[in-house]
């Protein structure tokens, strides 16, 4: 089922190419297939959503899992010093979570 969802989103485009596109530029205008893909995985509810907590302004961000309104977030392993690296880490975790796709760096 997860694989079918992925195919529906990327509509015949090459997944490796889309992943490379995201890795190169995680923010801003994406290709149509990549945008459909990231829209899907970014639609996670606040209960379980992966996000970042800024721990040093403009310098350091910590991976967190949101647990819903008013509930404390869970600090996860993963400290980043570049927001693009953090975006990539979240993307990889979500590709695993939503489509059971393992991505290497």
């Amino acid at each position: 089922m997860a694989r079918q969802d992925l195919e529906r989103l990327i509509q015949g485009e090459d997944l490796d190419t889309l992943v490379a596109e995201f890795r190169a530029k995680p923010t801003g205008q994406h290709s149509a297939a990549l945008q459909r893909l990231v829209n899907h995985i970014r639609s996670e509810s606040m209960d379980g959503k992966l996000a970042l907590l800024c721990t040093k302004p403009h310098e350091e961000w910590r991976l967190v899992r949101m647990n819903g309104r008013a509930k404390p977030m869970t600090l996860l392993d993963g400290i980043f010093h570049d927001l693009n690296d953090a975006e990539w880490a979240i993307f990889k975790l979500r590709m695993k979570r939503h489509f059971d796709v393992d991505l290497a760096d």
Partner: protein
Amino acid sequence: MLKITGYADRVSVMPGQTIRFMVNCEYPQYEAGVVRVVQGDSAPEAPPVKLVPVPSTVDGRYPGRKQVIHAGSFARIDCGDRFAASPSFSMQAMVMPTTPKKGRQAIISKWDEAAGKGIALVVAEDGSAGIELSDGAHKVTLSVGKPMLAKHWYLVAATYDGAAGKVAVHQQPQHDFPTIDDSGSTEANAPAGFAWDNAAPLLFAASWGGEDAGRPVGRALYNGKIDRPRVSTAALTLAEIEALRGDRWPERLAGTLAGAWDFADDIPGVTVRDISGRRLDGAVVNMPTRGVTGHNFTGEDGMCWKDRPDQWSAIHFHDDDVYDAGWQADFSLTVPETMKSGIYAVRIHAEGEEQFVTFVVRPARGKPTSKLAFLFPLATYMAYANEHFGTNDGLVELHLNRALVLHPHQQFLNEHREYGHSLYDLHSDGSGVYYSSRLRPVLNLRPKVEANHGAGPSHLWLFNADTHITSWLEHFDQDYDVITDEDLHEEGFSLLSGYRTVMTATHPEYYSREMYDAVQRFTHSGGRLIYLGGNGFYWRIAYNRTQPGIIEVRRSEGGSRAWEPPTGEYYHSFTGEYGGMWRRQGGRSPNHLVGVGFTAQGFDVSSYYRRASGADDPRAAFILDGVDDEILGDFGLTGGGASGMELDRHDVSLGSPPHSLVVARSERQTEAHVHVVEDLLFNHMGTTGDVNDKVHADLVFFETPNGGAVFSVGSIAYSGALPWNNYDNNISRLTLNVLRRFMDPAPFPLPQA
């Protein structure tokens, strides 16, 4: 987690006045001092943060103390021992519970939590109407046992017959659903002659938690509406209770009626009026929402509470309402006559943690000290106060089109809901937040703070983004006064009349009628207005006429909005004015005022402007004097371009003056920038920035009567381009051209008709 928070009793203060600061500090001691805020962006790509220490009487070391907020609204009737001689008692109301499954919630109580003594009509743990009765030693509880449906109206009542020793509870739904069993009455034996009375006040929507540092504390907080509460000093039958639910009562029941409250009396204010003749008037605490539809709202007799107040005789209470945190003051500042008008903050720091309380020193009334005024958009800052964008709704990430980055103040606010909400949030029961107060710590109104919506590299929104403007002014040694739009609401046009030019912030979105009309009159009286932002003059708001520091919005009919009020709640409770977007309010669209109006929003990456045909008109030649570039603002601290976040478009059909000139227009906005819903009837494909021509910003100039003029940039990201390359860039240059011409007293002639 934050251990220092604070606020002041006012934001705008003039020389000679005193501003008091309230601080919560969990460290043993802290240092405080005043700084003038020039540049609050701490991103490495931005110019250095510039907070100029200002020696004052505030300077010093203070003992830290913890101060807390008691959120939750209720109504309080101080009735003393009025009921001490009345062992029998009945309480009833029409109620619309919004969280019946939340747990014990008091609807009507004379219940002292500390003593565990009193009588209360409650939403019981099981979600049904219940009674609690206790003399402090023995407690009787009874509930109907059939949970009420959320957001449906019920008649609920509880009685105690002190002579017969019986308690009874009743619950009648207003609408019967054939598959729902939620109607019932039940009774039980209880001790006769129970000494339940206590010193607690009679409360609606809470039980009495005593006082803490002079503030009343509600417990067992109720979420939902209460309409027509009544209290009787007799144990009434169900038939008698039904006879009292309306507004005309049988004479035989009037003798035991101890109080009957009409919440439609004083909808704009805080009093709750007893119409039983017993004069048990009271007041609301923490500003529950008034001007809301009651159980008998028909939709056929008018849509405004002023038309038929009896159909708006309800109050919506929330367990997270907060008006005045009511903290003890820690220090104060009497503003010396020599203190220049500007943006200031008290910097509080201890053990490596830093907090700010921002305020404005404005000039004395009628005594501007500059010909330029920066209009500090306090109303919009209040609208966004303590927003929970990043912690309430997961779909925020689709607005951002980038990972959700939370900041320490948001982590704190997520867990400390008692700090109250912004006008973008939902209450804990899912209803929209209509009111926002500044009499509480506002943790996103400070320098150095980041936000979700402002794009990188700076990630600023509202106040801190607006310091890009003040730092730009000071880089070019431009003298300016700072005035707030709350001052503008109170003083109107006279506040602006002494200025040649008024400059806005990046996002002056929330405007009262008084504010809007004052700015309009200024531009029609020879004044010059530089609208340096996007999505301005958008929502109509109302100020409360008796309670300071609180605003209201009703997002009526349409618009790009975080919630919608239910039908019948489109009129502000504070004023009776119709709520909603200014563009629907008769010739007061933002386009009328500034030539452009909201057209799109997106929060990932900004774009640039391209010079447009208006730039070649001799009337606008001064704007791009010395700027030869075709492309303007393809750089910046907010999304990497001058056109982004929220965008405004020139549109004569929406009110843009026909003689207004489009000097530049943005292009190539991202797909995340979406066309606003108020322009759509049927939703359809092709509404995003990559394909829709209406997703753009217009940079507009036009002359106004009596030698005035307006310059609008139509983009929130615009000001993030001003400091780029040490303020040496084409956006900075063209803005400086405009400012210098606008500060020149030579009138702008209106073009020939």
